[in-house]
C-alpha cells in the first residue's frame, strides 16, 4: 500500500462507486428512506433530553444545554455507526474479496464514508438548531472540521484493526458492541464534565484524556459555547493535553500496518 497506489484513479472510482452503493442500499425499502439518517439521532436525542435534561436536571449551568446535548449525541452516533460499519465491512463485502483482487482498505473506507455523509447531514441540523436556540456564530466554527477529522481518524483506525481480526474471529462484533455501551458512559455526553469535577477532579481529568471525549468537547466548545470544559483548558500538563491526539495517531498507524499485513489472507479466511 504505497501512497501513489492508494490514491490512483482506479481505486478512487471504486471507492466512490462502493460508497454510493452503500448509501443507496442503507435505506432501501424503507418508507421514509434517507430521512432515517436524520430521524434516528434526533429520536435518540429526544429520549436523552427528556430523561437527563428535564427529569434529572443535568446541565443546568451550561448555556444552550439542549443543543450542547444534541451535538454530543450526534457525534457519538457518528462514532458508533462508523466503527460498527467499518468492522463489519469485510464480512458484508466478502463476496468481492473472494472474487476480485483489489486493495481491501477500500471496503472499510467506503463503509465508514456512509457514516460520514450521515454525520454531515446531522451536523447541518445541529447548526440550524443552534441558531434557533440563540447561539451566535463564531470564528471558532471553522475549527470544527479539525475535530471531525480527528474523530473519523480514530474510528477508521479502530475499524481497520478490529475489522481485520473480525475476518477470522467473528466474536469481535459482539465484543465491540459491549465496549461501545461501556464507552458511552465513559464519555461526557449525557452528563457535563463539571458534574464529575465537583466530586473528583482527577476523574474529570482522566475522562478528558479519552480521545473521543476530547474531540466531542472541542466541537461543543467551538460550536456551541466557549464555556465548555475541554482537554485544553482543563488539564495543566501540556504533555498530557496532547496525549489524546498521540493516541489517535498511534492507533491509526498500528491499525493500518496490521491491516496491510493481514489483508493478503482475507480472501481465503473470510
Amino acid at each position: 500500500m504505497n501512497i501513489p497506489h492508494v490514491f490512483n484513479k482506479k481505486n478512487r472510482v471504486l471507492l466512490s462507486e462502493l460508497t454510493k452503493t452503500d448509501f443507496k442500499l442503507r435505506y432501501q425499502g424503507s418508507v421514509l428512506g434517507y430521512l432515517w439518517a436524520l430521524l434516528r439521532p434526533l429520536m435518540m436525542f429526544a429520549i436523552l433530553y427528556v430523561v437527563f435534561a428535564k427529569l434529572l436536571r443535568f446541565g443546568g449551568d451550561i448555556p444552550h444545554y439542549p443543543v450542547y446535548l444534541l451535538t454530543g449525541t450526534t457525534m457519538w452516533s457518528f462514532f458508533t455507526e462508523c466503527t460498527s460499519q467499518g468492522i463489519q465491512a469485510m464480512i458484508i463485502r466478502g463476496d468481492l474479496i473472494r472474487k476480485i483482487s483489489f486493495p481491501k482498505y477500500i471496503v472499510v473506507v467506503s463503509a465508514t464514508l456512509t457514516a460520514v455523509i450521515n454525520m454531515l447531514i446531522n451536523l447541518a441540523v445541529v447548526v440550524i438548531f443552534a441558531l434557533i436556540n440563540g447561539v451566535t456564530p463564531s470564528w471558532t466554527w471553522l475549527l470544527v472540521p479539525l475535530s471531525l477529522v480527528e474523530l473519523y481518524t480514530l474510528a477508521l483506525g479502530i475499524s481497520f484493526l478490529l475489522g481485520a481480526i473480525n475476518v477470522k474471529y467473528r466474536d469481535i462484533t459482539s465484543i465491540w458492541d459491549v465496549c461501545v455501551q461501556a464507552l458511552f458512559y465513559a464519555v461526557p455526553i449525557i452528563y457535563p464534565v463539571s458534574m464529575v469535577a465537583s466530586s473528583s477532579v482527577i476523574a474529570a481529568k482522566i475522562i478528558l484524556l479519552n480521545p473521543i471525549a476530547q474531540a466531542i468537547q472541542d466541537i461543543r466548545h467551538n460550536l456551541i459555547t466557549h464555556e465548555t470544559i475541554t482537554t485544553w483548558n482543563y488539564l495543566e500538563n501540556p504533555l498530557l493535553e496532547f496525549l489524546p491526539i498521540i493516541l489517535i495517531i498511534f492507533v491509526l498507524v498500528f491499525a493500518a500496518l496490521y491491516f496491510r499485513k493481514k489483508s493478503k489472507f482475507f480472501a481465503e479466511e473470510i
Partner: protein
Amino acid sequence: MAKREIGSRKEIIADNDIAIHVSNLSKSFKLPTERAFGLKQAIFNRIRGVKGFKKQSVLSDINLDIKKGEFIGIVGRNGSGKSTFLKTLAGIYYPEKGEIIINGSLIPFIELGVGFNPELTGRENVYLNGALLGFSRSEVDNMYDKIWKFAELEEFQDQKLKNYSSGMQVRLAFSIAIRAKGDILLLDEVLAVGDAAFQKKCEDYFRSLHGNQTVVLVTHSMENITKFCDRAILIEKGKIVLDDKPKIVAKAYKNLWS
C-alpha cells in the same frame, strides 16, 4: 502460530514474449478441524496445544510459462486445484511458495457479475460492476449503450436486478466483462451463457480473441478446449500432469474416469 512463508507475485511490463511465468508455486489452505471460528475455540486450542486446523495442500510445485498470444486451457477434476491456481494468478490468493510474474495488464473473470446487487437497477449495477472491473465512470458512459445492445436487454435498464431472470443477469454481466481491455485474460467457466443465440455471440467473441490476446481458460468442456485453445494442461491433485496439444489433453482427461 507458525510464521507463514510467502511467495511472490509481481506485475511487470517487459518486452519479452513470456506473458505469465510461474515457478515452484505451492499453495495450501488451513482447514479448521473443529468449528474453530470464534475466539473461545481459538483460546481453547492454544491452551490444549491443539492446532485448530489441518493443512491441505492444494497446489504443489507448479512450473509454467505462458507465451504472449497463447490461448491456454486448464482442465482437471473438481477439487484438483484449477480454480485456486487461477485465483492465485489473479492475485486474489497469495502464493505460499514460489514466484509468479505477470507481464502485462491482467483481467480476471473468476466469476461474472461480481458485486451485482439485486436491490439496485440494471443501470446502477453496470456502473458498480464496471468500477470493479477497473473502468472509470466516463469509460462506462462511453460503452453503456453497447453493453445493453450486446446483452439484448435495452428495455430493462431501469428495472431492479432482482426482477431479471438468472439468464438475463448472466448476459448483462458477460456484456460488461467483455468490454475490459487487457493483455491477459483469466477465465473461469464463463463460456456458454444464455440461450443458443447468445452462445453464438459469445463464441464469436472468443474467436476474436484468438491470437490477439493471452487467454487462460479453466473449463470442464473438452469441446471448448479443442475449439479455442492452442495448448492445454491437465491438473491432478495440485500438480501439472500433462502439458500438450488440446486434443491429447482432452483424451487424457476423458481417460481419468475409465
